[in-house]
Protein backbone atom coordinates (compact mmCIF):
# COMPACT_ATOMS: atom_id res chain seq x y z
CA UNK A 1 0.00 0.00 0.00
CA UNK A 2 2.82 2.40 0.87
CA UNK A 3 4.83 1.27 -2.11
CA UNK A 4 1.74 1.71 -4.31
CA UNK A 5 1.47 5.28 -3.09
CA UNK A 6 4.91 5.99 -4.54
CA UNK A 7 7.13 5.54 -1.49
CA UNK A 8 9.76 2.78 -1.65
CA UNK A 9 9.94 0.53 1.40
CA UNK A 10 12.52 -1.70 2.99
CA UNK A 11 11.60 -4.31 5.58
CA UNK A 12 14.43 -4.98 8.03
CA UNK A 13 13.53 -8.23 9.75
CA UNK A 14 14.75 -11.25 11.64
CA UNK A 15 12.14 -13.81 10.55
CA UNK A 16 13.32 -15.18 7.22
CA UNK A 17 10.52 -17.71 7.00
CA UNK A 18 7.83 -15.07 7.53
CA UNK A 19 9.39 -12.65 5.05
CA UNK A 20 9.56 -15.47 2.47
CA UNK A 21 5.81 -16.01 2.81
CA UNK A 22 4.73 -12.38 3.02
CA UNK A 23 7.10 -11.27 0.23
CA UNK A 24 7.45 -7.56 0.96
CA UNK A 25 8.87 -5.58 -1.97
CA UNK A 26 12.36 -5.42 -0.41
CA UNK A 27 13.50 -7.27 2.68
CA UNK A 28 16.82 -7.24 4.52
CA UNK A 29 17.38 -10.29 6.69
CA UNK A 30 19.16 -9.84 10.01
CA UNK A 31 20.06 -13.16 11.64
CA UNK A 32 19.32 -11.97 15.17
CA UNK A 33 16.62 -13.12 17.60
CA UNK A 34 13.25 -11.49 16.97
CA UNK A 35 12.85 -8.36 19.07
CA UNK A 36 16.58 -7.62 18.83
CA UNK A 37 16.83 -6.62 15.19
CA UNK A 38 19.44 -3.93 15.77
CA UNK A 39 21.49 -5.71 18.41
CA UNK A 40 21.55 -6.17 22.17
CA UNK A 41 20.25 -3.42 24.48
CA UNK A 42 22.33 -0.27 24.84
CA UNK A 43 24.74 -0.98 22.01
CA UNK A 44 24.41 2.14 19.84
CA UNK A 45 27.39 1.35 17.57
CA UNK A 46 25.83 -2.00 16.72
CA UNK A 47 22.36 -0.46 16.19
CA UNK A 48 23.92 1.95 13.75
CA UNK A 49 26.02 -0.71 11.99
CA UNK A 50 22.99 -2.91 11.30
CA UNK A 51 20.94 0.02 10.04
CA UNK A 52 23.78 1.26 7.82
CA UNK A 53 24.22 -2.24 6.37
CA UNK A 54 20.52 -2.41 5.53
CA UNK A 55 20.58 0.99 3.85
CA UNK A 56 23.71 0.11 1.87
CA UNK A 57 21.85 -2.88 0.46
CA UNK A 58 19.08 -0.78 -1.08
CA UNK A 59 20.60 -0.18 -4.53
CA UNK A 60 21.18 -3.94 -4.94
CA UNK A 61 17.49 -4.89 -4.99
CA UNK A 62 16.40 -5.62 -8.52
CA UNK A 63 13.02 -7.32 -8.20
CA UNK A 64 10.00 -7.38 -5.89
CA UNK A 65 10.06 -10.01 -3.18
CA UNK A 66 13.84 -10.25 -2.91
CA UNK A 67 15.33 -10.98 0.51
CA UNK A 68 18.94 -9.92 0.95
CA UNK A 69 20.97 -11.36 3.83
CA UNK A 70 22.90 -8.65 5.67
CA UNK A 71 25.37 -11.21 7.03
CA UNK A 72 24.79 -10.20 10.65
CA UNK A 73 25.56 -12.80 13.33
CA UNK A 74 24.05 -12.42 16.77
CA UNK A 75 27.03 -14.04 18.52
CA UNK A 76 30.54 -12.98 17.55
CA UNK A 77 31.59 -16.65 17.35
CA UNK A 78 28.59 -17.60 15.22
CA UNK A 79 27.07 -19.69 18.04
CA UNK A 80 23.36 -20.33 17.76
CA UNK A 81 22.75 -20.96 21.47
CA UNK A 82 20.37 -18.01 21.38
CA UNK A 83 17.83 -20.12 19.54
CA UNK A 84 17.02 -22.23 22.64
CA UNK A 85 16.69 -19.10 24.78
CA UNK A 86 14.37 -17.55 22.22
CA UNK A 87 12.21 -20.70 22.08
CA UNK A 88 11.80 -20.47 25.84
CA UNK A 89 10.90 -16.76 25.63
CA UNK A 90 8.42 -17.38 22.88
CA UNK A 91 6.72 -20.12 24.87
CA UNK A 92 5.25 -17.30 26.98
CA UNK A 93 3.89 -15.62 23.87
CA UNK A 94 0.35 -16.91 24.05
Amino acid at each position, binding site marked *: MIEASGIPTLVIGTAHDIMSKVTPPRAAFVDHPVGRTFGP*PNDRPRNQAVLAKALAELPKFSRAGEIRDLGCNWSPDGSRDWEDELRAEMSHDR
Partner: protein
Amino acid sequence: MPFEYLPIMAQNSAPKPPRVLASPSKPAWCEITNPVSASRVALLSSAALRLANQKPFIPREDSSYRRVPSDLAAGEIIIDHHSGIGRVPKQDPEIVFPRTALAELAKSGIVGSVAPFHFSFMGGLREHEKIENELAPAIARDLKEAQVDLALLVPY
Protein backbone atom coordinates in the same frame (compact mmCIF):
# COMPACT_ATOMS: atom_id res chain seq x y z
CA MET B 1 19.74 -22.19 8.55
CA PRO B 2 17.64 -19.24 9.81
CA PHE B 3 15.51 -19.73 12.91
CA GLU B 4 11.98 -20.87 12.06
CA TYR B 5 9.27 -18.74 13.63
CA LEU B 6 6.18 -20.08 11.92
CA PRO B 7 5.97 -23.45 13.74
CA ILE B 8 6.26 -21.71 17.14
CA MET B 9 3.67 -19.11 16.19
CA ALA B 10 1.29 -21.87 15.11
CA GLN B 11 1.81 -23.68 18.40
CA ASN B 12 1.31 -20.49 20.43
CA SER B 13 -1.90 -19.47 18.73
CA ALA B 14 -3.71 -22.66 19.85
CA PRO B 15 -6.59 -23.16 20.47
CA LYS B 16 -7.16 -20.42 17.90
CA PRO B 17 -6.11 -21.33 14.37
CA PRO B 18 -2.66 -20.08 13.38
CA ARG B 19 -2.44 -16.57 12.06
CA VAL B 20 -2.70 -16.45 8.31
CA LEU B 21 0.15 -14.54 6.74
CA ALA B 22 -1.12 -12.15 4.14
CA SER B 23 0.62 -10.35 1.32
CA PRO B 24 -0.92 -7.20 -0.16
CA SER B 25 -3.75 -8.07 -2.54
CA LYS B 26 -2.15 -5.73 -5.09
CA PRO B 27 1.64 -6.14 -4.90
CA ALA B 28 3.49 -3.00 -5.83
CA TRP B 29 7.06 -2.01 -6.59
CA CYS B 30 8.26 1.55 -6.54
CA GLU B 31 11.66 2.24 -8.04
CA ILE B 32 14.18 3.98 -5.82
CA THR B 33 15.15 7.17 -7.58
CA ASN B 34 16.89 9.10 -4.78
CA PRO B 35 20.06 7.87 -3.12
CA VAL B 36 19.66 7.37 0.62
CA SER B 37 21.96 10.34 1.15
CA ALA B 38 19.33 12.54 -0.49
CA SER B 39 16.25 10.84 0.98
CA ARG B 40 13.95 11.74 3.82
CA VAL B 41 13.51 8.55 5.82
CA ALA B 42 10.82 7.40 8.27
CA LEU B 43 10.65 4.31 10.46
CA LEU B 44 7.58 2.11 10.72
CA SER B 45 7.36 -0.30 13.62
CA SER B 46 4.80 -2.98 14.44
CA ALA B 47 5.77 -2.94 18.13
CA ALA B 48 2.83 -0.69 19.10
CA LEU B 49 5.15 2.10 20.21
CA ARG B 50 4.18 5.45 21.66
CA LEU B 51 5.30 8.20 23.94
CA ALA B 52 4.05 8.18 27.52
CA ASN B 53 1.68 11.07 26.79
CA GLN B 54 0.11 9.31 23.79
CA LYS B 55 -2.93 7.07 23.99
CA PRO B 56 -1.99 3.47 24.88
CA PHE B 57 -2.65 0.69 22.37
CA ILE B 58 -5.15 -1.90 23.49
CA PRO B 59 -3.94 -5.43 22.73
CA ARG B 60 -4.59 -7.41 20.68
CA GLU B 61 -6.65 -6.08 17.82
CA ASP B 62 -6.12 -2.32 18.14
CA SER B 63 -5.74 -1.17 14.52
CA SER B 64 -4.87 2.44 15.28
CA TYR B 65 -1.42 3.95 14.84
CA ARG B 66 0.72 6.58 16.52
CA ARG B 67 2.95 9.23 15.07
CA VAL B 68 6.09 8.99 17.14
CA PRO B 69 8.23 12.14 16.98
CA SER B 70 11.68 11.57 15.55
CA ASP B 71 12.99 14.24 17.91
CA LEU B 72 15.04 12.26 20.39
CA ALA B 73 14.17 14.73 23.13
CA ALA B 74 10.43 14.06 22.71
CA GLY B 75 10.45 11.46 25.45
CA GLU B 76 10.80 7.83 26.33
CA ILE B 77 9.36 5.20 23.99
CA ILE B 78 6.87 2.73 25.43
CA ILE B 79 6.20 -0.67 23.84
CA ASP B 80 2.56 -1.72 24.17
CA HIS B 81 2.79 -4.89 22.11
CA HIS B 82 1.69 -7.97 24.01
CA SER B 83 4.32 -10.33 22.62
CA GLY B 84 6.26 -12.47 25.07
CA ILE B 85 9.50 -11.46 23.37
CA GLY B 86 9.11 -7.94 24.75
CA ARG B 87 11.23 -8.39 27.88
CA VAL B 88 14.49 -7.41 26.16
CA PRO B 89 13.31 -4.67 23.77
CA LYS B 90 11.40 -3.04 26.64
CA GLN B 91 14.79 -2.47 28.29
CA ASP B 92 15.90 -0.55 25.20
CA PRO B 93 13.33 0.08 22.43
CA GLU B 94 16.12 1.31 20.14
CA ILE B 95 16.88 -2.32 19.29
CA VAL B 96 13.57 -2.56 17.45
CA PHE B 97 13.13 1.14 16.70
CA PRO B 98 16.52 2.63 15.86
CA ARG B 99 15.58 6.29 15.88
CA THR B 100 18.90 7.32 17.47
CA ALA B 101 20.89 5.33 14.90
CA LEU B 102 18.88 6.90 12.09
CA ALA B 103 19.45 10.38 13.50
CA GLU B 104 23.19 9.68 13.73
CA LEU B 105 23.30 8.45 10.13
CA ALA B 106 21.54 11.64 9.05
CA LYS B 107 24.06 13.69 11.01
CA SER B 108 26.93 11.96 9.22
CA GLY B 109 25.31 12.45 5.80
CA ILE B 110 24.63 8.76 5.05
CA VAL B 111 20.91 9.51 5.28
CA GLY B 112 19.54 12.71 3.73
CA SER B 113 17.16 13.63 6.51
CA VAL B 114 14.78 12.13 9.05
CA ALA B 115 11.02 12.64 8.78
CA PRO B 116 9.49 14.62 11.65
CA PHE B 117 7.49 11.57 12.71
CA HIS B 118 7.93 7.83 12.67
CA PHE B 119 4.91 5.52 12.78
CA SER B 120 3.89 2.57 14.87
CA PHE B 121 1.00 0.14 15.03
CA MET B 122 0.17 -3.27 16.50
CA GLY B 123 1.76 -6.23 14.74
CA GLY B 124 -0.01 -9.56 14.45
CA LEU B 125 -3.49 -8.20 13.77
CA ARG B 126 -5.84 -10.77 12.39
CA GLU B 127 -8.07 -8.33 10.50
CA HIS B 128 -6.07 -8.07 7.31
CA GLU B 129 -8.74 -6.20 5.37
CA LYS B 130 -8.77 -3.43 7.95
CA ILE B 131 -5.00 -3.13 7.64
CA GLU B 132 -5.11 -2.94 3.87
CA ASN B 133 -8.16 -0.70 3.61
CA GLU B 134 -7.73 1.62 6.60
CA LEU B 135 -4.45 1.45 8.50
CA ALA B 136 -1.96 1.26 5.62
CA PRO B 137 -3.65 3.94 3.47
CA ALA B 138 -3.77 6.32 6.46
CA ILE B 139 -0.05 5.83 7.15
CA ALA B 140 0.73 6.17 3.42
CA ARG B 141 -1.13 9.50 3.38
CA ASP B 142 0.84 10.76 6.38
CA LEU B 143 4.11 9.65 4.78
CA LYS B 144 3.23 11.50 1.58
CA GLU B 145 2.26 14.60 3.51
CA ALA B 146 5.63 14.49 5.30
CA GLN B 147 7.35 14.10 1.89
CA VAL B 148 9.02 10.89 2.94
CA ASP B 149 11.18 9.25 0.24
CA LEU B 150 11.87 5.95 1.96
CA ALA B 151 10.01 4.00 4.64
CA LEU B 152 11.90 1.44 6.74
CA LEU B 153 9.60 -1.18 8.24
CA VAL B 154 10.82 -3.07 11.26
CA PRO B 155 8.56 -6.04 12.12
CA TYR B 156 8.26 -6.91 15.81
